[in-house]
């Protein structure tokens, strides 16, 4: 079937089988390899992307459900790795093999967008379904806290900039 949907801000029109999951559309049709295949059964979270702003397992979303949707993948999370999670992940050296990490970051980005200062319990609840076979979980948790900090300080400095601009005016 022919569908049109937005991927990382660009409208794409493609012709694929109606039951083809978004995961494989991204990886094989659109050549966006950042979203990973781990299980194909909603059991691991490696395939997590944002659909209309919510973290979603792309292996479970068929082409037929995509028309008009806005999809953001790890490749489109930020320009130049500037998202606080991407910064924190590098700073704390979170990845081991790295295979789960795109999914972890996309899930965590959803968490931070609704809950900018999550507790450990909030993190556990949000990240429960994102498996890391290497068990980099200590650093995933620390990375989310660090990203929250980075985001808070950049909000504070933006606010300061705004205040000082007003001061000058």
């Amino acid at each position, binding site marked *: 079937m022919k569908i049109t949907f937005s991927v990382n801000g660009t409208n794409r029109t493609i012709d694929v089988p109606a039951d083809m999951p978004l995961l494989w559309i991204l990886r094989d049709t659109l050549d966006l390899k*950042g979203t990973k295949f781990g299980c*194909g059964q909603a059991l691991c979270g490696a395939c997590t992307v944002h659909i209309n702003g919510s973290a979603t397992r792309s292996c479970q979303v068929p082409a037929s459900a995509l028309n008009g949707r806005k999809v953001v993948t790890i490749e489109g999370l930020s320009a130049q790795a500037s998202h606080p999670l991407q910064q924190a992940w590098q700073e704390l050296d979170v*990845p*081991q093999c790295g*295979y789960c990490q795109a999914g972890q970051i996309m899930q965590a980005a959803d968490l931070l967008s609704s809950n900018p200062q999550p507790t450990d319990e909030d993190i556990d609840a949000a990240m429960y379904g994102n498996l890391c076979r290497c*068990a980099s979980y200590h650093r995933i948790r620390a990375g989310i806290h660090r990203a929250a900090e980075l985001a808070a300080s*950049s909000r504070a400095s933006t606010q300061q900039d705004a205040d000082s601009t007003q001061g000058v005016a």
Partner: protein
Amino acid sequence: MSTPSPILARRDFLRVTAVAGGGMLLGTMVDFAGIGVVNAMEPAGEFMPNAFIRISGAGVITILAKNPEIGQGIRTMLPMLVAEELDVAWQQVIVEQAMSDEAKYGSQFAGGSMATPTNWEPLRRAGAAGRQMLVAVAAASWNVPVGECTTEAGVVHHESSRRRATYGELASRAATMTPPALDAVKLKDPKDFRIIGKSIPGVDNLKIVTGKPLFGIDVTVPGMLYAIFEKSPVFGARVASANVDEVRGLPGVKQAFVVEGTTNLSGLMPGVAILADSWWAARSARRQLRVTWEQHPTAQQSSAGFRARAKEFFAAAPQTVARQDGDVVTAFAAAAKVVEAEYEYPFLAHAPLEPQNCTASFANGKLEIWAPTQAPQGGRQLVAQTLGIKPEDIAIHMMRCGGGFGRRLLNDYMVEAAWIARQAGVPVKLVWSREDDTQHDFYRPAGFHKLKGAVDANGRITAWENHFATFGDGQRFAQAASISPNEFPISFIPNALFGVSQMPLGVPTGFLRAPTSNAIAFVYQSFIDELALAAGKDPVQFRLDLLDQGGIVAATPAAPASPVNAARMKGVLELVAEKSEWGKRKFPRGSGVGVGMHFSHRGYFAEVVEVNVSQRGEVKIVKVWVAGDVGSHIINPSGAMAQVQGSVLDGIAQAMKQEITIDGGRSVQTSLADYELLRITEVPPVEVHFRTTEFPPTGMGEPALPPVIPALASAIFMATGKRIRSLPLARHDLSWS
């Protein structure tokens, strides 16, 4: 924070071609890493003192990462060794993955925690040789003694004349020199290390967090088809018939055929290949595939059957006695107390998150392979033998692996892709489903132990006997199913016997992170706790006393001395006891601590686990303390910490809930729904301490895993009074009142 650091941005310019090295490239190379197609020609005037270093006239310093990266951090750590002695700043270095070429790079293998001990000196020497040549060129051109020149961050200085030259400026002249003999070069005094000992983040982190193609599963080759390979769930069964004609007509399907396969359980097994223009099309067509499999004797095998057979073995004497010290019969008769117990552990899967996959292209008698593999050289041999082609006609690109854990030491998926690509006549990307991955692993073999131990009136162990029931044909053990007769505490006890009985196995088995150790540490350390209890001694003190008992009097070829250095083992045991305040805390019923220690892969680890067990039997791990001794240096503390914490959590996952059950000659478990991985909610704090000793540094990928399992089991005993003699814990009712 919005612009990436210059280091990482520069790494993105990695020139893929040079990875190919000595003429292994087939024309230009495919741009799988998102970098651009480039030509294989090397510009003239580059300084390449050896296979690991390349310095261009423009000052670009490239270090080759020789080994497969499976998440253990080796692509970062080995180049650190070269960079240290070359004396460049890490920020200047571009790390490039080497091709599989053992003639050029030496052993390229990710297993046995071997990379650190085997490369620690050679790679530093490779770096030092490069530095020595650059210094010699600078000194000659300034007409000053070599000894007056110093280096730092890729620059040679002559202090008194205030002259300096960058490595790039010296490269073309250095390129004309003959490299020195590696064993003659001088290495730094460790106190001058600038990179070794610093936490260096993984060199691929930027690509990982931005989703750049990097892993085996991300490879794209022009004109390739996507393949699925269906094998019999009963291991090794051949195809009797399959509706391949019908499958060929399904949407997107280009080819479908039966592969006869071989009888090598670690090689090309029989099956049916479906090739389509997308993986999804191949996978959809697979649902219409109908295969009748031939009868196979393995269908008679089951976990329950293995257990029953082990019981029969235990009712008789072992088939073979692999080691006998002193006289156990007399020692048992004279003992103050004798303890007997049977232990067992299940088959386990590796379950790396990236399912097995491989891309292969066969043209003009030559094969090019892109594989996530831990053992590329083994893969080359297997493919060469199976396809009947020459090993030198196979080029292997070592792709980053989405987890290894020992699974990718065996290259079944590589030979499948190679065979299918040659038969299909087009490049093929084979990707297994999660179900394929779960049902066609090389499982950690199950094992059964009947133990008998004696303590004397002073509470010392006087006799130790183990009857090990395992798998083999009577001549040879099944893969990874043997255990060393010399494993600690044997040779620390005067009277000991290690007997073995083997039963046949048709299930493929292999090496799982800390192979052997991940099983035997649970059994032996738990049994040592049982003996400590019988002796009325504290488990830590009991172990210290055992270590003090020392090796046997006279080691012989049949009864060698223990490989365990008692002083190093005591060192970590005392350290973990101190850090966990062992013996100083009181625990109410339902809570407890346990200790375990183990020597493997040249590393010494002792661990303490604290648990709470609810009255309903739910286990919560409160904390884990780890003490490790891997020698004189922790080369990359960030990577080391990740490996230790990851290993400990891996051990916890195995102990808590993992099990592969064989029934009807197949794995009962088929996915992550019934073979569960650890979740973030199950992760306790893991506090790690290292004790540095004068020994050369050794590997970190495995030795921290084994002790946590018995430590957890004995903590549960303290909390509930229930002795854990089989795994996983999920099998046990741990409720108490």
